[in-house]
């Protein structure tokens, strides 16, 4: 049951102002940043959750994983090459902009975030590098602490997978009436956009504006 639930509900995507990434030095993309522990207020919570949730300290990739980094992964793991991947792990859009299995082509820049990758692929990558995907709570907490999110009305979005991307069930039907009422900050429209995006995904979806980054915990946890 638990495994099934994880299987079904794992994942995430976060929406980030793409422009905010532009300001980050992508050459240092594999550098990790310490996020100190602290309290995080989830946008949505069930009746059993406390309004605040303690987040242990962790390291997070300063930038999303790049095409160049992901290329190393598929070279080392043939089952994740475009021609080899199983459709249940990545849909037909998987790495669709790459020229071929191991050639980025001219359109795709090696130092830009890799997109068109499924949750399964992102998860496999993280495992391969000895890290894991951030949870929604970790991602949102880090975004807040590191000011990763562009909260302006900029409609150009970039999303990132999270480990438990669709665990916060905000069904469209519940959204329509009372989503705002059950949210801790009903004015946080960018957060609503991120949560609804995550919630619309399935783990094999591969999309143009959807990438990921990894986290690693401190100590043995």
């Amino acid at each position, binding site marked *: 049951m638990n495994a099934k639930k994880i299987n079904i509900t794992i994942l995430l995507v976060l929406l980030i102002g793409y422009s905010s990434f532009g300001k980050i030095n992508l050459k240092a993309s594999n550098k990790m940043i310490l996020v100190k522990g602290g309290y995080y207020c989830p946008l949505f919570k069930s009746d059993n959750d406390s309004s605040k949730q303690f987040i242990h300290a962790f390291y997070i990739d300063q930038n999303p994983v790049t095409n160049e980094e992901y290329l190393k992964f598929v070279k080392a793991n043939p089952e994740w090459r475009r021609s080899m991947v199983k459709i249940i792990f990545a849909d037909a*859009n998987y790495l669709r902009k790459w020229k071929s299995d191991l050639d980025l082509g001219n359109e795709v820049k090696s130092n830009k975030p890799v997109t068109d990758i499924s949750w399964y692929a992102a998860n496999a990558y993280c495992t391969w590098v000895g890290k894991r995907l951030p949870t929604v709570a970790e991602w949102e907490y880090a975004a807040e602490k590191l000011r990763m999110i562009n909260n302006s*009305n900029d*409609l*150009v*979005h970039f999303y990132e997978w999270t480990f438990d991307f669709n665990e916060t069930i*905000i*069904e*469209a*039907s519940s*959204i*329509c009436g009372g*989503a*705002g009422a059950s949210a801790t900050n009903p*004015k946080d*429209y960018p957060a*609503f*956009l991120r*949560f*609804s*995006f995550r*919630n*619309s*995904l399935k783990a094999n*979806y591969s*999309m*143009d*504006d959807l990438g990921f980054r990894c986290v690693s915990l401190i100590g043995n946890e």
Partner: protein
Amino acid sequence: MKLKLEPKLKYIILIPAVFVILLIITIITFQINGCNEYSNKVKGEEYANLTYAPEVPPEIMRNHPSKVIVNLETMQVTGRLADGVEYNFWTFGGKVPGEFIRVKEGDEVEFHLDNSPLCTVPHSIDLHAVSGPGGGASASQTVPGHSSTFSFKANHPGLFIYHCATQPVPLHIANGMYGLIYVQPKKPLPPVDHEYYIMQSEFYTTGDYGAPGLQDFSLDKALAENPTYVVFNGSVGALSGSNALQARVGETIRLFVGNIGPCLTSSFHIIGVVFDKVYLFGGTNVTQENVQTVTIPAGGAAIVEFKVNVPGTYTIVDHSIFRAFNKGAVGMLTVTGNENKEIFSGKQDDNLYYGSEMDKKLENNNSVVGNTDINPQNAKSSEGNSNSIDDIVAAGKKVFMTTCFACHQPDGKGVPNVFPPLAQSNFLNADKQRAIGIVLRGKNGVITVNGKQFNNVMPAQSLSDDQIAAVLTYVYHSFGNSGKTVTKDEVAKVRNGK
């Protein structure tokens, strides 16, 4: 012979009788199952005919429900909100409002929601015609580059809103994701000459109304429910000028009107039109006849029917009138054809009007003057010509202080640049006949008095000859004027003269 003839006769009678019976059965059968009779059995399959506002798909003529396939694509497009103003619209079908969907009561609707790969966010659809959780919202939740399918039975006839129901819903609605679906009743509404689709909605922009350039959504204005724009069919002017609705005199019109809000209730009105029939809230019954203004809640609709009898331009407004005048909620219906003066004459006359206050003063003046001994007329009739000039001046002053003082002022000096002076007036003193004529008939246009130009209107005065004689004598004997006397006969001469 007889034996041979009788069977023939039997056949002659029997054959027509059988024929008549068959005919009667056919007629009865036809009346029961005839072409006007609606079958509840779903037959056939077809694609829904979708139209962009203000067009409405044609009436569905079939007499049975069908499987109807609807394909609607969600798209994000930059477009015109007003002249020089652009907005990043989120749409059903590439325009605001979304395409009009027409199905028939009992239809099985197979709905395909296609989210364009160019969209940046997931979309969905909540059709108010659907009985089921979210009106299809969760069933149609779709990320960019994907397509969702769900089906529903159109059991409720009427006019319904549809809108996107993806988080955050208010943003998706505010950005333009809405339209109308009409579930045509089994028994269709009476035929009309025109059917049109009008959708009212609001836009909340960071810039003020008319501020040029690409405008962002303003969450602050939206939370305050203070829209920058209130429009019909997605933009300012979408129903005006060359986009105006068209009809000819004598034609009947049915409007399918929706209001998505997202905040305001519409006071839908057409200037110069009385709605013959209103299907309030878009339901199936005529709820009221002869209606001026229809309230349409946010997320609601109405159907109105009317006939146009007189040519001209009819202005469609939200009669919460500042929205029409200052926020864009204006459309137009242009009616061509022959005038009908019996129904509407147009302007028949244009006269000067002195105001109801002035009328009262005149009445008072007449009664006062008429009952006093110093009225020149009474004085003459009772005392011959013994009326002193002082009495006439006194009577004239009464007339002046009720009729003339408001403009020319009690001291006769007038108001600079507006009302010319009577005091020491070269214009007045130069020509007595002219002065009498002006009091009798009024005066407008440019005159020069004591070297200053005045351009205003003095109305003709409803005064008797006696009163005019008195008031002019008073004026000539006052304010440093020439001291002339004006007689009743002089006034009568001018009155009858030209």
